[in-house]
C-alpha cells in the first residue's frame, strides 16, 4: 500500500513537471498538456448538460466532441439534453439539490443569474490563454462579473425572420423590406391559408423579449440603463413605446391569434411545422426541429430567412444571443470539467459547434468567413450590431418569472390599459426588480 502510494505520488509529480516543462518550452501548449492529462482522468465520468432538443445535427456534434475528449483524456462523458423552456427549473433543482452536472451549456443572458446563485465556477484562466484568448472581449460582457469570467462564449445567435418560402412563392409575395410590407405579407398569408394561421407569430412566452427587444431597440429604445449603481427604467421613452406598439399590434391587428398570448418560440416552432405559421422571429437552430416535427416535409427551399425589417426600411436591431459553456460550481470532477470546457470552446470544436448548430462562431476569422455565405449573411450582419438585455442577475426575474413586459402587452391587447399606463407600471416594476439586492 505504502509503496503504491509513493509510486503514485512520484508519477504524478513527474507528470506535472513534464507538463510544466512542455508549457514553458514549446509555443503550442494545447497539444502536450492535453496529452499529459490523458491518463489522469481514466475511469472518471463527467456529466454534461446540453440545452435544446437533441436533433440529429446537434447529437452528432456532441457525440464527436465527447469521443474526442474520451480519446484524449480517458474520461467518460455522460450527455443529458434539457429543452430550453425547462432550463431555469432544471438549474434551480440542480443547484438546490447539489446534483448538478460537471459541465453545462448555458444561455449567455442566464450567466449573471446563475453566477449570483453561485452555481458556476470561475474559469478566468481558460479565457486568458490559448485559443480562447482570441475571443473578442466585447463578447464576454455578460460572462465577466467582478473581474472573473464564469462561462466561455460557444456560439453566437442573432435572430431573423423564418418564413415559408413556398407560400411566398405561391402567393407571389416579395420579401418584405419594411415593417408595413411585412404586415401586408402576413395579412395576405392569413387570407389565403386560413384564419387560424398566424401571419407573423406573436411571442409572449418566456423568450418574448427577443422579439419585443428587437422592435424596441430598432425604434431607438432601451429597457434600462445603469446610472451610477442603480438601474433606471427606460420603458416609457418614445423609442421603446414605438417598438412596444408594433409588438402588441401583431395581435390587435390580427396577425397572430389572441388565444396564444403566452406562446414561446418552441411552441411557435411546433405550429410552424404544422403549417399554422407564416413567419416568426427565430434562428437557424429551429430548422432541425421543424424538419422532425413536420416528418421531413418542411425543409430545404420551402423555408428561408430574411432580416427583420425596421419600420422605415433597413434592418432591425437584433438580440445578442448566444450559448456559452460553463463549469458547474459543484462539479465533482473540477479539473476534468475545466479541460472539457477548454477543448469544447477551443477553435476547432468551438467553430464546429457554431457552424453545425446554426449559430455564429465567436472567433473573428471564422465569423468573417461566414459573412460571405449568402444564407448566413443576414445573421452575421445582425450579429455585428446586436444588443443585449440589462446585464443583471435579476433580469431573469423580470424577463421570465414576473414576465413584466409580457404582462404589460397582455394588458394593452386585452384593452385593460393604454400603452402609456401599461409601460409606466412596467417601468416601475422593472426598476424595482433590477434594483433589488
Amino acid at each position, binding site marked *: 500500500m505504502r509503496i503504491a502510494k509513493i509510486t503514485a505520488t512520484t508519477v504524478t509529480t513527474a507528470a506535472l513537471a513534464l507538463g510544466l516543462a512542455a508549457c514553458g518550452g514549446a509555443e503550442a501548449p494545447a497539444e502536450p498538456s492535453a496529452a499529459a492529462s490523458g491518463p489522469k482522468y481514466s475511469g472518471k465520468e463527467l456529466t454534461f448538460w446540453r440545452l435544446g432538443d437533441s436533433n440529429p445535427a446537434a447529437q452528432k456534434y456532441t457525440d464527436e466532441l465527447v469521443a474526442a475528449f474520451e480519446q484524449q483524456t480517458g474520461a467518460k462523458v455522460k450527455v443529458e439534453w434539457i429543452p430550453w423552456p425547462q432550463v*431555469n427549473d432544471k438549474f434551480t433543482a440542480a*443547484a*438546490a439539490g*447539489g446534483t448538478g452536472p460537471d459541465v453545462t451549456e448555458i444561455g449567455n443572458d442566464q450567466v449573471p443569474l446563475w453566477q449570483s*446563485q453561485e452555481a458556476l465556477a470561475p474559469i478566468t484562466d481558460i479565457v486568458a490563454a490559448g485559443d480562447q484568448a482570441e475571443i473578442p472581449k466585447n463578447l464576454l460582457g455578460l460572462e465577466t462579473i467582478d473581474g472573473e469570467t464564469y462561462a466561455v462564449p460557444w456560439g453566437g445567435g442573432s435572430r431573423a425572420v423564418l418564413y415559408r418560402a413556398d407560400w411566398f412563392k405561391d402567393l407571389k409575395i416579395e420579401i418584405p423590406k419594411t415593417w408595413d410590407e411585412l404586415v401586408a405579407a402576413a395579412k395576405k398569408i392569413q387570407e389565403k391559408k386560413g384564419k387560424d394561421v398566424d401571419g407573423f407569430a406573436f411571442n409572449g412566452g418566456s423568450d418574448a423579449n427577443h422579439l419585443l427587444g428587437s422592435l424596441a431597440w430598432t425604434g431607438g429604445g432601451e429597457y434600462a440603463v445603469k446610472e451610477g449603481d442603480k438601474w433606471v427604467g427606460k420603458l416609457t421613452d418614445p423609442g421603446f413605446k414605438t417598438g412596444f406598439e408594433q409588438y402588441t399590434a401583431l395581435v390587435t391587428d390580427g396577425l397572430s391569434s389572441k*388565444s*396564444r398570448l403566452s406562446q414561446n418560440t418552441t411552441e411557435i416552432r411546433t405550429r410552424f411545422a404544422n403549417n399554422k405559421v407564416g413567419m416568426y422571429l427565430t434562428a437557424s437552430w429551429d430548422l432541425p426541429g421543424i424538419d422532425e416535427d413536420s416528418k421531413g416535409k418542411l425543409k430545404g427551399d420551402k423555408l428561408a430567412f430574411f432580416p427583420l425589417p425596421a419600420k422605415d426600411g433597413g434592418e432591425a436591431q437584433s438580440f445578442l444571443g448566444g450559448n456559452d459553456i460553463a463549469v458547474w460550481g459543484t462539479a465533482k470532477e473540477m479539473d476534468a470539467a475545466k479541460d472539457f470546457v477548454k477543448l469544447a470552446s477551443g477553435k476547432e470544436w468551438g467553430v464546429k459547434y457554431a457552424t453545425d448548430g446554426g449559430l455564429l462562431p465567436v472567433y473573428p476569422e471564422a465569423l468573417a468567413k461566414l459573412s460571405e455565405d449568402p444564407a448566413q449573411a443576414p445573421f452575421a450582419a445582425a450579429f455585428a450590431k446586436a444588443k443585449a438585455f440589462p446585464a443583471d442577475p435579476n433580469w431573469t426575474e423580470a424577463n421570465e418569472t414576473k*414576465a413584466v413586459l409580457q*404582462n404589460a402587452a*397582455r394588458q394593452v391587447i386585452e384593452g385593460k390599459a393604454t400603452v402609456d399606463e401599461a409601460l409606466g407600471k412596467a417601468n416601475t416594476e422593472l426598476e424595482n426588480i433590477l434594483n433589488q439586492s
Partner: protein
Amino acid sequence: MTDTSTLTRGGGNPSPSGRRRPGRPAKASGLPVWSIPYLLLVPGLLVIGALLLYPMVQVAIIAFQKVGLPQIRPVNTKPAEWVGVENFTQIFGNEIFWNALRNTVVFAVLAVSLTLVVGTAVGVLLNKLGKKMSTLVIVGIMFAWAVPPVAQGIIWKWLFDAEAGIINWALNLLPDWLSTLVFGRADWTGEPWLNDAWSIYMVLIITVVWASFPFIAVSVLAGLKGIPAELYEAARVDGASAWLTFRKITFPLLRPVFAVLTVLSIIWDFKVFSQLYVLMGGPSNREAYNLSMYSYAEAFRSPPKMGSGAAIALVLTVILLVVTAVYVRQLVKQEDMS
C-alpha cells in the same frame, strides 16, 4: 378524503369502549392502564410530527428569512439571513398578491357553493332512484371523482381549446339566432377560453365542481339512508311539498354531514393548484394566479425566493384556519341553540 366517513361515524365510538375498560385489571405488560391510549397514539403523533408539523414550522421560519439557492444547497451552505417582516411587506405591496387573493377567495366561494348544491341535488336524486339505477349513477359519477387532478386539467383544457376544442365546435352548432339571443354572438371560432383570468376561472370552476360533486353526492346519500322513513311518511301525510320536506327534515338532520363537507370543500378549493397549473400552462398569466400558484412562482421559479414563497403559504394557511374556525364556531353555536 376517507377520513370523513370515520369522522362522522366515529363520533360515538370511543365512549362505549372506554366505559368497559376501568373494571379490568392491569395488562400483563405491567403498564398502567391510563398510559395505554397515549402509548398507542405515539406512532401516529411521530409520523404527523415528522411529516406535517416539522415542515410547517420550517415554512413559518423561512417566511421571516431570505432563503435562496445558496442557503439550501447541500454543499457549502450559507446561513439564512433574518429579514423580519420584509417578505410580508414585499408581497403585500405587490399587486399580484391582491389579485391572487381575490381570485382565491372568489373561486373558493363559487366552487364550494356550486359543489355543495350540485352534490346535494344528485345525492337526493340517488336516494329516489331504484337500486340498480342508483348503483349505475354512483359508479358513473365516481369515475369523475377518481380522475387525478392533472388529468382533470388536461381533459377540460382540451374541451375548451380555442381551435380544436369541442366546446367551441358545439357552440358553433347552435342556431345563430339562439346563440345571439343567449350570448350576444354567433361565431365562436377560435374563442380563447384559457386566456383571460375570468374565463380561466370559469373553466377551473367547472373542472373542480365536476370532479368533487360525486363525493358530496355519495356522502349525502349515506346520510339520507340514516333518516328514518317515518319522518317522510308523516310529512307526506301532512301534505308537505318536496322543498318543504327537504328544508324541514332532510337539511336539519343532515346538518352534521353538511358541516364536515363544507369545511372539507373549503379546504380543498382554497388550495387548488394542479388543475389551474395545467389549464393555464404553468404560471404564465399572472392576473390569473391564485395564492398557491403565486407562492409556487415566487418560491421555485428562478431566481427562487423561498422566503416570500413561504410567506404567501403562511398567509394562505392563516386565512384557511380563520375561515374554518369561524365556520365551525358558527355551527357549534347553532347546535347549542337548537
